[in-house]
């Protein structure tokens, strides 16, 4: 739902154009010719009882773009006592929904914007605060690559033929009764999904009886539309919508940090007070990749494998798992908790795999999946993301070969992992060979971890990864 306005705008080609027009010269002219200034009004979360402090939106009765009359029910709000219909106080159009269904807002806060005329709908939408801090990230497949190691390229490849097919079929709905594409025959659920996803039914080829558009056709079109943004093939389909990247960025605007972004910023600034140094290492991953292939079917992920390997290496080098809390002592942690950096919509979080050295790889993988789901749903508890003793950050899925990470405060070291790539190497016996190698780079606090400690740790880690039989113990 959070992206619905974007998808909608891509199918109403006039919307961006009117925005452009308005920006240039329409505004001043308007004010002179119209006596009454049209306004964008806010719809507030009402106090439905004397004890209510916040309310949850149960459902929006009207959708963005719908006409509203004064006294008409717009939204259903759940108070501490019961569900109540909230009416609109003005005539106009529901221009933008600020708080979506299922989310809560404080009494008095803005939950939607009402535009008095249809033209102002687009203006109101631009006023809508982007990425509200309470928004639930859509279950979009664009988050998947960043969170888990499972590379989505096979998925994208499979989707592109589908995209081309749906783009080609645009406007030529093969339906005997549709009278050459004028009338759409779609099942009730298909219509509902199309409305929720903001997909135009006219462009969808129906696979139901007599060419009827059914729910799965709409779902396929939606999935294709989301991915086609980057494929470049779809001229009309969502090409103006953002590519599969965090969208909602208004160029030239100033957007304040969300709570999470403020926390990240604070931590990064704090890290400037710590004396750090970096040590890099190249590790051959052929054996690890082979192991991964073997146990992948059991639900094991690469992240879990790396975390386990790191934890086992840390067990042999406890000083790398220590931190300097007060500037004058070593705090040797009793647990090895590997925090893995995960990018989520609008931020970054580090779910923690506790006791990674002690837990077997299968439980670790399961736990990791659980943590990722919770992270995406913004439901991680503090003890699930603040208790890390060593951090792992992986940008390998983007093809990054090496980078160095900033040390999170309160820990001693963070390891930045790059992509594993086939590399030409010279072997000891003077031959040339091909090995899959990845570069890791550890940033450490030199108050507690010295060069030799770190180098020794990396040597151990490299041995574990190159001979990974211990990982499955």
């Amino acid at each position, binding site marked *: 739902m959070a992206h619905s306005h974007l998808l909608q705008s891509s199918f109403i080609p006039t919307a961006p154009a009117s925005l452009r027009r308005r920006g240039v010269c329409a505004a001043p002219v308007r004010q002179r010719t119209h006596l009454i200034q049209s306004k964008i009004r806010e719809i507030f979360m009402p106090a439905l009882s004397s004890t209510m402090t916040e309310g949850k939106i149960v459902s929006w009765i009207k959708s963005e773009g719908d006409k509203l009359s004064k006294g008409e029910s717009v939204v259903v709000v759940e108070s501490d006592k*019961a*569900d109540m219909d909230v009416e609109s106080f003005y005539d106009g159009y529901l221009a933008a929904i600020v708080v979506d269904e299922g989310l809560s807002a404080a009494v008095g806060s803005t939950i939607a914007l009402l535009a008095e005329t249809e033209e102002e709908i687009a203006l109101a939408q631009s006023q809508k605060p982007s990425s509200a801090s309470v928004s639930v990230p859509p279950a979009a497949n664009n988050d998947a690559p960043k969170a888990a190691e499972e590379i989505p390229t096979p998925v994208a490849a499979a989707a592109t033929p589908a995209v081309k097919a749906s783009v080609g079929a645009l406007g030529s709905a093969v339906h005997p009764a549709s009278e050459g594409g004028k009338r759409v025959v779609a*099942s*009730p659920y298909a219509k509902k999904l199309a409305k929720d996803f903001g997909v135009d039914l006219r462009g969808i080829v129906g696979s139901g009886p*007599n060419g009827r558009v*059914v729910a799965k056709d709409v779902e396929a079109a939606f999935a294709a539309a989301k991915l086609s943004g980057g494929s470049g093939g779809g001229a009309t389909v969502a090409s103006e919508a953002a590519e599969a990247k965090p969208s909602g960025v208004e160029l030239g605007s100033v957007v304040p940090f969300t709570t999470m972004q403020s926390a990240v910023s604070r931590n990064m600034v704090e890290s400037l007070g710590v004396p750090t140094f970096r040590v890099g290492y190249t590790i051959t991953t052929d054996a690890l990749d082979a192991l991964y292939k073997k146990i992948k079917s059991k639900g094991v992920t690469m992240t879990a494998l790396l975390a386990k390997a790191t934890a086992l290496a840390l067990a042999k080098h406890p000083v790398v798992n220590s931190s300097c809390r007060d500037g004058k002592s070593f705090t040797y942690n009793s647990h090895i908790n590997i925090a893995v950096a995960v990018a989520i919509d609008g931020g970054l979080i580090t779910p923690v795999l506790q006791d990674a050295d002690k837990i077997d790889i299968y439980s670790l993988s399961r736990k990791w999946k659980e943590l990722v789901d919770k992270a995406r749903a913004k439901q991680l508890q503090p003890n699930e993301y603040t208790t890390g003793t060593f951090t792992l950050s992986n940008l390998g899925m983007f093809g990054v070969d090496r980078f160095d990470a900033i040390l999170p405060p309160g820990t001693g070291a963070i390891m930045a992992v790059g992509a594993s790539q086939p590399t030409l190497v010279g072997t000891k016996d003077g031959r040339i060979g091909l090995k899959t190698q990845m570069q890791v780079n550890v940033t450490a606090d030199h108050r507690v971890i010295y060069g030799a400690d770190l180098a020794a740790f990396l040597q151990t880690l490299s041995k574990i990864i190159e001979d990974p039989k211990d990982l499955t113990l």
Partner: protein
Amino acid sequence: MFINTAMFLVRTPNGLKTAIIEGDVVGGTCVNRGCVPSKALLAVSGRMRELQNEHHMKSFGLQVAAAGYDRQGVADHANNLASKIRSNLTNSLKALGVDILTGVGTILGPQTLKYGKGGSGGTAITAKDIIIATGSVPLVPKGIEVDGKSVITSDHALKLEYVPDWIAIVGSGYIGLEFSDVYTALGSEVTFIEALDQLMPGFDPEIGKLAQRVLINPRKIDYHTGVFASKITPAKDGKPVQIELIDAKTKEPKDVLEVDAALIATGRAPFTQGLGLENINVQTQRGFIPVDERMRVIDANGKLVPRLYCIGDANGKMMLAHAASAQGISVVEQVSGKDHVLNHLSIPAACFTHPEISMVGLTEPQAREKAEKEGFEVSVAKTSFKANTKALAENEGEGLAKLIYRPDNGEILGVHIFGLHAADLIHEASNAIAMGTRIQEIKFAVHAHPTLSEVLDELFKSAKVKVTSSPVAEPVSV
């Protein structure tokens, strides 16, 4: 006496010699084509919906593997139930000494009738009192062609011969609503076609809105209101069912739907043809037999036909099985020498969707209209099932109970419930209305905890009545 729906017959131990003339199957619509099979199907759909609601199951900590159904098994459950009840009923009747005469009944004159294959033949009999209870059949508006396969009525639907992918239901009253519950639970998508501007027009509007939010919006159902289906052509040669929609007011063509099946649920028409009513000078009004408040039949001159009664759907007063039953009991009382007038406002009604809807008495608009005319104040009390422990334990907090009452004397004007077991909960309220119990008396009654009945307890306790009950019988305001 001759009766066709035998629902209440088992309750006539007054020593009257009784016979039933049955032209079809014992039990009539209720047992064979109505209440019984539909509730069987709704029981299936309720469970199916629960099992498929993964989110709901998860909230209990349950995991259910993909739930599926066998259509024949479901249909058999309904059919077997109907057969069982039919044979139970027949046996009960026999045990009571009731004669079951098979054939079509025709009235020849006061206290005389015949039964047989219809037409000129048949056996003539006399009876001291005659009760007409011939019931109703599904109403099929003109322009609609029913073929029993792709365009069906509730009679066919209850046999559940197949489950269509997409079914249009013409009529959004309780029959259409119950069927939408069954079909969507079994995997179909539904489109409602409603002539009035509001869906579920018979319900209290507030309940209707909530019902729409829970029973229609989240399900695979869409709707067209303010339209008539002027023409429905059954599916033929691979072409789907065609439904032509016209605007209900302007009669202009609005749309054409193509669906896999259409269910006609536009109401029921009284079955009063061929009863020989002309022999006693009785004229039907839109098919209904005119009766007074004591169910006595009124002839074309406005005079009561002696010893002739009509109960149930055939008289159109309240087309519900238990209303027919109550009317029948009222008649039996009268025939046995005791006067009795049935208070229809105390008869509850229920819709067995999931969650259920039930009501007794007046809706809020009806109550306010009456209040304006008669000059009294109307108040409304509401509670949510969210506040009820049992409902929350079942994760079924979605529900509303509404009490419409007179604050000056505590009279209950109407109660409407939407929520889990609403159909069972309504009886406390309907009993109160039947006995004339006032809110100030009933609010001290104790309800077991934790039960859903506490929803009603809350309602009564939250009502603000200006009169308090006293141990001495209070003067009854007339």
